[in-house]
């Protein structure tokens, strides 16, 4: 490999995440156009003792994207590079935004098995943080990863082999810098999206059954009225024609990439915890009670209740257990700390695991007992990056500090 002498680009500008709650100023700002440039960035950084941090599209609101050293955007490495519609896979650039990827895959007859409510993140950011949609039988987006390529800590390009897949699926850029991801996909498919308005009392007793019947189901609860919006997605001709006590307010059919996500303009900060599915209802009801008693004065945003199927990625928030996720939201112009911190204590009592890309207050000491494969992830991470090139101070606090 030919390493160019002037690889790193000095930066003086502040960077802010999507919500604006996280501001940092990296010394170098990079956007490689190919693997040679990406490898050169890592090589130079390692040689100079600098940390390398992929930033995705800055959508995360936890400090996993922040660095004082080298921030790397993969925005120039995007698109579908290779695909096989019969074998149902595609190799995509790490910096491909999910919305663009959805359109491109649809054009060649492929689709992801699910998407989150927002689809502006890069595919590598979504995979690396266990971003997910909602569906009792649907795993998070990290589980799509079956291969690809990455830049190692010493600046070499290597395949993401099956030996590291369980760690790579939720690795937050700490194993290496991913440049291309090989994804397991589905033939493209159509869905009918329906939105229903009801109240918590009317729907909560039906939720378990609905979650088994619907391909996708999530629930928004509105703390200042106790009202609820249910969203269901099913193949056309299937799913719920009616839900007891609920009024159908929206119906739309389209390709999965068109109807799974919605455009979000209003910005917010968010905390999300994943709890075992059997604990979901009780945990939610306790959260609801606490919000109504203590936080309604300042909190008008809804609480989101979703389902994610279990998987085996070492640091997946659904590792080894079918899961319910509960998300708190607050306008990004309003304080969130007291609200999030208070409710976080409830999540933890139910064995909650925080979303890697959203607000939380946990470090390695609290996280390690939540993940049965924690030690194996750490062993592999240290083996791949012994000098900690991909380990900023925050990531070290998150993953490395011993209890």
């Amino acid at each position, binding site marked *: 490999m030919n390493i160019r002498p002037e690889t790193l680009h000095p930066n003086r500008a502040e960077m802010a995440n999507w919500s604006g709650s996280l501001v940092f100023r990296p010394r170098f700002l990079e956007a490689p156009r190919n693997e040679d440039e990406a490898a050169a960035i890592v090589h130079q950084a390692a040689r100079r003792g600098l940390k390398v941090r992929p930033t995705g599209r800055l959508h995360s609101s936890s400090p996993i994207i922040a660095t004082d050293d080298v921030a790397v955007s993969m925005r120039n490495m995007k698109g579908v590079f290779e695909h096989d519609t019969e074998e149902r896979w595609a190799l995509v650039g790490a910096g491909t935004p999910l919305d663009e990827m959805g359109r491109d895959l649809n054009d060649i007859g492929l689709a992801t098995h699910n998407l989150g409510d927002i689809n502006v993140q890069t595919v590598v950011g979504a995979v690396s943080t266990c971003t997910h949609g909602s569906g009792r039988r649907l795993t998070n987006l990290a589980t799509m990863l079956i291969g690809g390529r990455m830049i190692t800590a010493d600046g070499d390009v290597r395949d993401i082999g099956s030996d590291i897949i369980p760690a790579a699926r939720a690795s937050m850029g700490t194993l290496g810098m991913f440049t291309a991801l090989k994804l397991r996909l589905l033939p493209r498919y159509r869905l009918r999206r329906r939105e229903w308005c009801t109240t918590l009392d009317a729907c909560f007793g039906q939720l378990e059954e609905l979650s088994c019947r619907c391909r996708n189901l999530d629930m928004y609860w509105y703390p*200042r009225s106790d009202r609820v919006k249910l969203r269901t997605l099913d193949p056309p001709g299937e799913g719920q024609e009616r839900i007891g006590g609920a009024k159908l307010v929206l119906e739309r059919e389209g390709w999965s990439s068109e109807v799974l996500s919605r455009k979000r303009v209003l910005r917010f900060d968010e905390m999300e915890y994943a709890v075992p599915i059997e604990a979901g209802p009780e945990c939610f009801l306790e959260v609801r009670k606490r919000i109504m008693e203590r936080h309604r004065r300042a909190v008008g*945003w809804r609480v989101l209740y979703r389902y994610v199927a279990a998987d085996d990625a070492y640091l997946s928030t659904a590792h080894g257990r079918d899961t319910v996720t509960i998300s708190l939201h*607050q306008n990004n112009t309003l304080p969130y700390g007291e609200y999030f911190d208070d409710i976080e204590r409830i999540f933890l009592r139910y064995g909650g695991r925080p979303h890697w890309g959203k607000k939380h207050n946990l470090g390695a000491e609290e996280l390690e007992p939540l993940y049965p494969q924690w030690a194996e992830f750490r062993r592999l991470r240290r083996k791949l990056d012994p000098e900690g090139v991909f380990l900023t101070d925050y990531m070290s606090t998150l993953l490395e500090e011993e209890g």
Partner: protein
Amino acid sequence: MTEGSRTWAVPGGRVPEGSTGAEPENTSYDMLCLLNTGREDASISIWLYYEDKLPVGPYPIEVKAERVRHVRLNDLIDPEAMPLGIEYGILVRSSVPIAVQYWRQDTSRGKAIATAMAMPLD
């Protein structure tokens, strides 16, 4: 023919912080009743004024031609959720003449309804 005004004010807003009884029917709230009798859709901006900070808005609302719409101020989050239990005032600006009524339900002790026409400013 269109009736009403394009600008309206409600100086005496205050969403009661507490609620008693089953919700949502017994949630305390402040509400604006917006009546558009004209043949054009109304694009409405709501601004909220406070004692100790700059006005917050616009909260965008659409009311179709020859339709009425009731908007609970508690529920608005765009651009941000309003705090409950404090004094505030409301300014309503509309692209076409409309009529505006203010409505409060207070269930903090029993159930009390108060209502008044907003004040036309133009």
